[in-house]
């Protein structure tokens, strides 16, 4: 199926590239040239009564890619993210995920237990408000360990060790492992949420405004942390944000949404520096300079 709103694809539809022979540029990490996408979305539509949430969205996400979704409030970007992550049932369309066992499988029609298993293993979801993604009355270590237990870890020592290791990776000291998230700052809570999500080694992370509501100084540290984790773990991620500076630093690719439709997509810096659609041009030219 073609992607009707993908301007870059339409633009490039005229010809195919001559491909390098397999392995000609072998790299030691995330393979961006594999033959199967990690996620393939087709014709995804969600309506609220007569109002459009998102309409006919389609794209492929490849292993190791980070895709940003930008648009103003009400553009449908959060609806789209929630449909992709299985939090909202779409009215039509497919969300095909490259499962470890069965290859590309439609997560919309898969059974609820199967989808929940994905949510605990290969998928992760980082909420804008850390309290939506954390258990606030459970210790930091417990928050991280809980997700491990959900996938079958049982040995207390191993779980605690993994929890401390992950807290360290998100720069939370081992001495805070028994503290509850309520005793943490906003930035720390967000880093704890990331540790909780990544401890099971997911392949795809959904993020909803991960740096929203944080001080800019904390934001920079979080961005660097996310970039490092994406690189080291070969993660793929879909990041919804309204902050163009954040996507420029974090996302390889960008989709721009307006009124539920994807109006433009392409390489992040290309979309921001040479926007083709009137709305993207308006969006980019409206950013205040510091």
């Amino acid at each position, binding site marked *: 199926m073609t992607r009707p709103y993908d301007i870059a694809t339409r633009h490039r539809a005229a010809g195919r*590239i*001559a491909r390098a022979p397999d392995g000609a540029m072998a790299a030691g990490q995330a393979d961006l040239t594999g033959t199967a996408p990690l996620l393939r979305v087709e014709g995804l539509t969600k309506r609220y009564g007569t109002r459009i949430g998102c309409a006919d969205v389609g794209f492929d996400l490849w292993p190791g890619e980070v895709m940003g979704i930008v648009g103003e409030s009400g553009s449908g970007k959060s609806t789209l993210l929630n449909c992709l992550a299985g939090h909202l049932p779409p009215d039509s369309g497919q969300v095909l995920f490259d499962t470890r066992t069965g290859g590309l499988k439609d997560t919309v029609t898969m059974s609820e237990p199967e989808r929940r298993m994905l949510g605990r293993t290969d998928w992760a979801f980082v909420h804008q408000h850390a309290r939506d993604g954390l258990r606030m009355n459970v210790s930091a270590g417990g928050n991280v360990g809980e997700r491990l237990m959900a996938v079958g870890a049982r040995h207390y020592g191993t779980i605690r060790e993994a929890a401390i290791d992950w807290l360290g990776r998100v720069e939370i000291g081992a001495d805070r492992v028994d503290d509850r998230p309520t005793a943490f700052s906003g930035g720390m809570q967000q880093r704890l949420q990331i540790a909780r999500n990544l401890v099971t080694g997911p392949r795809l992370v959904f993020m909803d405004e991960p740096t929203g509501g944080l001080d800019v100084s904390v934001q*920079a540290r979080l961005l660097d942390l996310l*970039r490092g984790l994406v690189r080291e773990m070969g993660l793929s991620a879909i990041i919804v944000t309204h902050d163009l500076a954040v996507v420029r630093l974090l996302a390889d690719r960008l989709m721009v949404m307006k009124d539920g439709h994807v109006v433009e997509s392409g390489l992040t810096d*290309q979309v921001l*520096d040479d926007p083709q659609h009137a709305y993207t041009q308006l969006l980019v030219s409206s950013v205040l300079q510091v």
Partner: protein
Amino acid sequence: MAVTEPFIDISGLSKTFTLHNQGGAVIRVMDGAALSVRPGECVGLTGASGSGKSTLMRMIYGNYLAASGSILVGRVDVARAEPREIIRLRREVLGYVSQFLRVVPRVPTLDVVAEPLLTLGVAPDAARHKAQTLLARLNIPERLWTLSPTTFSGGEQQRVNIARGFVHDYPALLLDEPTASLDAQNRETVLCLIEEAKARGAAIVGIFHDEGARNRVCDRVVDVTAYTPQAA
């Protein structure tokens, strides 16, 4: 030496900007551009300010969309490639030293320079070692390596950008005014880096306002004014 195939091969390239929020004005900025660069060759772009040197450079990097034509870098046609193909090309094949440093704030200079290698899967120690070597050659004092380059002077930022662009042996390089705000000693270092890159077979496209630098490293110059559409 046998005549080799061009590594960068551009033909029939044109570019327009459509300003939707200014009455849909269509501005033609380039028409019928052609350029080919062989491995080990450095081609300088010349032409008055506004003639399209940077525009051409940005199109080769995939930063600006081409209206028509082809831009072969190795086997990838940047004018038609999917984003993921360009991502891979930039990671492995095509380096770019721009005039502006754009990095995550508060990240140490050493990590900023090592990042292209880390992205390629090079071991962190080896990547940092290579970054140190380049920073030292470019006279960035060691006490600054742990600081973010966002606080550096213009000349220092430019040298960090150059270090980042040369840390991996890219088969193709785009250099936008790499010697612009450098003193004599650092300018010499950068010219040596360019000569070394040519010697190992890199295909280079550069913009040099510094005529001495251009004469020294460029094998040919191409005046992009020839591709600037005449005002209608």
